[in-house]
C-alpha cells in the first residue's frame, strides 16, 4: 500500500496527519457547540418539556436576545464581574509586582520566601473558595482577629452581608492569584540584562530613577501579558462565589458564570441562557482577539 505509507513519508501529508486529531477535537469543542448555541438561543427549548428533544424545539427567532439584554440579573452579574476584575486585577498586579521586586535581590531565605509566595496559586480554586468561607464565618479567624484587635467579641456574619461577601470573594481571588503576577514578574526580572541597570547606577542615577526609567520600560511587555491574562481569567470567576456564597445573599455576589449556571441549570431557561452565552461568547472573542496580540509579539520575538 504505497498510498498509506506516503502519509508518513511526505512532509506535507505527515503534517496533515499530525493536525488531524486536533481538527476533530475542534469540531467537538468549538464548532458544534457554537452552532448549537445559536440554534438553541433561537428556540424556547427547555429540558422540562417532556419528550421534547432539542432538535424539535419551537423556533422563536431573536426573541431570547431581546430578553437577554433586558434581563436585569444578567446585566447586574456582568457589572459585578467587571467590578471584581477592576478591583482585583490592579491590586494583584501591584502586590505581585512589588513582591517580585522586593524578593528579586539576593538575601538569606530567598528560595524559601519565593516558594511560600507561590503556594496559594497551587491550591485548587474550589478548595481556595472553601478556605475563605472558613476564614469569614462568624466564628472564623477573621472575626477572631478582629476580636483580639478591638478587645471585645466580634461576630460579623460576613457572608450574609452583600458588601462584605463581595469583599471576601475579592480577597480570595487576590490571595490566590497574586502569585500568578509574582511568578511572571519574577521571571521577567530575572531575564533583564544587567548592563543597562549597572550603567545607570554608574552614571549616578538613584535607585528610584533607575527603576522608573530603565527597569520599567524593559518590563512593559511581560507586565502587559500578566495583566491581560489575569484580567481574562478573572472574568471567568466562578469557584469562589460558588463555594463561598452560592451567589448570595440574594443575588449580591452573582458573577457572569454563576448567573448563567443558575439560569441554565437551576431554572432551566435554556433558550434564554444560550442567548446570553452567545453574547458572552462573542464579546469574549473580541476581547481575546486583542489580548492575543501582545502574546503573539512575545512568542514571535522570543
Amino acid at each position, binding site marked *: 500500500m504505497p498510498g498509506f505509507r506516503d502519509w*508518513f*513519508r*511526505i512532509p506535507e501529508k*505527515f503534517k496533515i496527519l499530525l*493536525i488531524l486529531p*486536533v481538527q476533530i*477535537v*475542534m469540531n*467537538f*469543542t*468549538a464548532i458544534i*457547540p*457554537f452552532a*448549537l448555541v445559536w440554534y*438553541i438561543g433561537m428556540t424556547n427549548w427547555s429540558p422540562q418539556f417532556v419528550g421534547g428533544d432539542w432538535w424539535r424545539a419551537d423556533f422563536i427567532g431573536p426573541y431570547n436576545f431581546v430578553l437577554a439584554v433586558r434581563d436585569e440579573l444578567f446585566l447586574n452579574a456582568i457589572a459585578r464581574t467587571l467590578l471584581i476584575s477592576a478591583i482585583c486585577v490592579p491590586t494583584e498586579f501591584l502586590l505581585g509586582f*512589588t513582591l517580585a521586586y*522586593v*524578593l528579586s*535581590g539576593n538575601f538569606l531565605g530567598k528560595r524559601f*520566601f519565593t516558594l*511560600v*509566595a*507561590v*503556594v496559594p*496559586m497551587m*491550591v485548587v*480554586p*474550589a*478548595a*481556595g473558595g*472553601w*478556605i475563605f468561607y*472558613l476564614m469569614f*464565618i*462568624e466564628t*472564623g*479567624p477573621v472575626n*477572631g482577629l478582629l476580636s483580639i484587635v478591638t478587645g471585645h467579641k466580634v461576630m460579623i456574619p460576613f457572608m450574609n452581608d452583600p458588601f462584605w461577601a463581595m469583599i471576601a470573594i475579592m480577597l480570595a481571588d487576590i490571595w490566590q492569584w497574586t502569585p500568578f503576577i509574582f511568578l511572571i514578574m519574577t*521571571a*521577567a526580572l530575572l*531575564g533583564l540584562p544587567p548592563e543597562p541597570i549597572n550603567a545607570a547606577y554608574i552614571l549616578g542615577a538613584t535607585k528610584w530613577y533607575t527603576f522608573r526609567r530603565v527597569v520599567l520600560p524593559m518590563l512593559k511587555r*511581560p507586565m502587559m501579558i500578566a495583566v491581560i491574562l489575569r484580567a*481574562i481569567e478573572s472574568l471567568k470567576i466562578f469557584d469562589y462565589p460558588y*463555594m463561598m456564597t452560592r451567589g448570595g445573599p440574594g443575588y449580591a455576589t452573582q458573577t457572569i*458564570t454563576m448567573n*448563567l*449556571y443558575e439560569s*441554565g*441549570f437551576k431554572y432551566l431557561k*435554556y433558550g434564554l441562557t444560550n442567548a446570553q452565552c*452567545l453574547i*458572552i*461568547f462573542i464579546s*469574549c472573542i473580541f476581547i*481575546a482577539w486583542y489580548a*492575543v496580540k501582545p*502574546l*503573539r509579539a*512575545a*512568542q514571535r520575538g522570543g
Partner: protein
Amino acid sequence: MDKHIENLLYTAVRYIFALGVAFFSLFPIYWMFTMSIKPPIEWASPDIHWWPWYPTASNYLMLFFHKNTLLEWGVIKPWEISVPETAVKAIMNSLILSISGTALSLFIGTFAAYAMSRYRAGGDYMFLTFRMLPPIAILMPIVMWLSTLRLLDTHIGVILLYGLFPVPFVIWLMRSFFDDLPREIDEAAIMDGCTPATTFIKVILPLVRGGLAVTALFIFILNWSDLIVALLVTYRTAITIPVQIGLYYSDIGHLYGIMSALGIFAVIPTLAFGLAIQKYLVRGLTFGAIKG
C-alpha cells in the same frame, strides 16, 4: 555610614514584607488543616481555637469508611455528625478522570504542537483565543450534546472534556519545548534516512521527554482543579473532589471538618506537582510567551 543604615533599613523592610506575605499565603491553608483535624464541637465554637484542642482523625476516616464501620470501631460516637456517603468514589474519580484526560490531551496536542513548530501548520492562535473564552459559554451546548449521546455523568464524557479543554495549553507548552530543539536535529535525522514520522517518534520525542513530563503535570493540575466542567456534566457516578466538597455543603448543613479534610486531599497533589514544575509554570501559564 549613611549607606550602611540605608541598606539595613532596606533589608528590614524586605524581611517584614516577605514575612507578611508568607503569613498571608500560608495562614488560610493552615486554618483549613486545623479545621480538618478538629472534632465537630470545635468547628463553630464561639471561642476561636487557633489550634485544635482535641485533634482527631475522624474527619479523614469519614472520607474513606462508612458511618457504621466507624461506629463499630468506636472511632466516632453515635451522636457525632457523620456523612451518609464516603468520598472514596470522588477521590478515585478525580484520579482516573484527571489522569486519563491528561493522557488524551497530551496525545492530541503533542502531534499538533510538533506540526506547528516544524511544519508551520496554522491555527495556533485560534486555539489560544478559544482558551480565553469562559468555559460556561461553551459548556451549555456541550452538556446538551453529551446528553444526546447519553454520555452525561459517565467517565467517558468527562474524560473527553478533560482531554479537549486543555489542548491549547498542551499545544503551546509543547510547542515551546519543540522550538527549543534546534532544527538541525531534524535535518540530520532526515539525512540519515529517517522519514518525517520516524524522525518525530524516534528522534524528537525522546529529546522532549522532560518537556512532556512538565506538560503532563501542568495539565494534570488544570484538570484536577477543575470545578465547573465536573459540576455541569456529572451528578452521581462521575463526580470529582471539587464537586464533592460542594455536596457536603448542601446535604446536612455545613460539615466543616469533613469538607476541610477533603480540601486537604484536593490540595496535596496540586501543591506537590506545582512546586515540582515551578520553574516551568510561567512558561505554561503564559502559553510559552515568557520563558521562566
